[in-house]
């Protein structure tokens, strides 16, 4: 149970251009461009080569978010969980045209 809480990351949509990243320690308000930047950083960090480098070295990452206003500490399970959360947020299946 404790582990689940430690890994929990959630993204909430507040208003048209305001989003919230809820981390175990704090809640960070993000604009859409900041969300895109977070997505890019997380995608870069979770490539096979990058994950291998992290695992073989410090085993965690420090990531600036929201135009460097916040710094978050992520271990591998948290990093992967955040990636899933972002993927879910940006998941955009092709629309069905009838």
């Amino acid at each position, binding site marked *: 149970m404790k582990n689940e809480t430690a890994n929990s990351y959630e993204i909430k949509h507040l208003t048209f251009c305001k989003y919230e990243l809820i981390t175990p320690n704090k809640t960070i308000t993000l604009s*859409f*461009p900041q969300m*895109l930047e977070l997505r890019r950083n997380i*995608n870069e960090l979770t490539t096979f080569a990058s994950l291998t480098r992290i695992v073989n070295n410090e085993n965690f990452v420090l990531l600036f978010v929201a135009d460097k206003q916040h710094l978050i500490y992520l271990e591998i399970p948290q990093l992967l969980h955040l990636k899933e959360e972002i993927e879910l947020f940006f*998941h*955009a299946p*092709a*629309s069905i045209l009838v």
Partner: protein
Amino acid sequence: MNTIVRKQMSIHPDVMDMLNNQIGMEMKASAAYLAMASWCDQRELLNSKAFFYKQAEEEREHAMKIFKFVNDNGGAAISPNVTNVNNEFESLKSIYETGLEHEISVTESIFKIFKAAREKNDFITEVFMQWFVSEQSEEEDSFRSILDIFDLMEGMPLKMIDERIPTE
């Protein structure tokens, strides 16, 4: 498309990633052509140098066109890293051969974006990419025509071959 993301972006996020890769590819091609232009410039191959300076500018224009398109449609365009630019070449002919290979790889990459845009019903990107498909056809043709000149003038002095390279 997911309504929240769709309200912010007109293009598909996965296609946006591919467009950002394409920006990097075009900028790398621009840097590669600049290196080729410099090689020709140092050897007083006037028409070839003019050709490659022009190519370098054109590739940058292509990158900028995509860059602005991504931002104009609510995405985030990324300024790319351009590294490992080769500045050493064996001959003028090998430069044009490398140039053709560059163009072919750029064309293939554009086809992939076009296909992905079509699969994801991202018609805005699909229509935008149509210009690039036609442009690549012209680019490949110009390199092939120049390589034909090398074959037709085989054994002639390099300066004479260079004088036959079209400048327009």
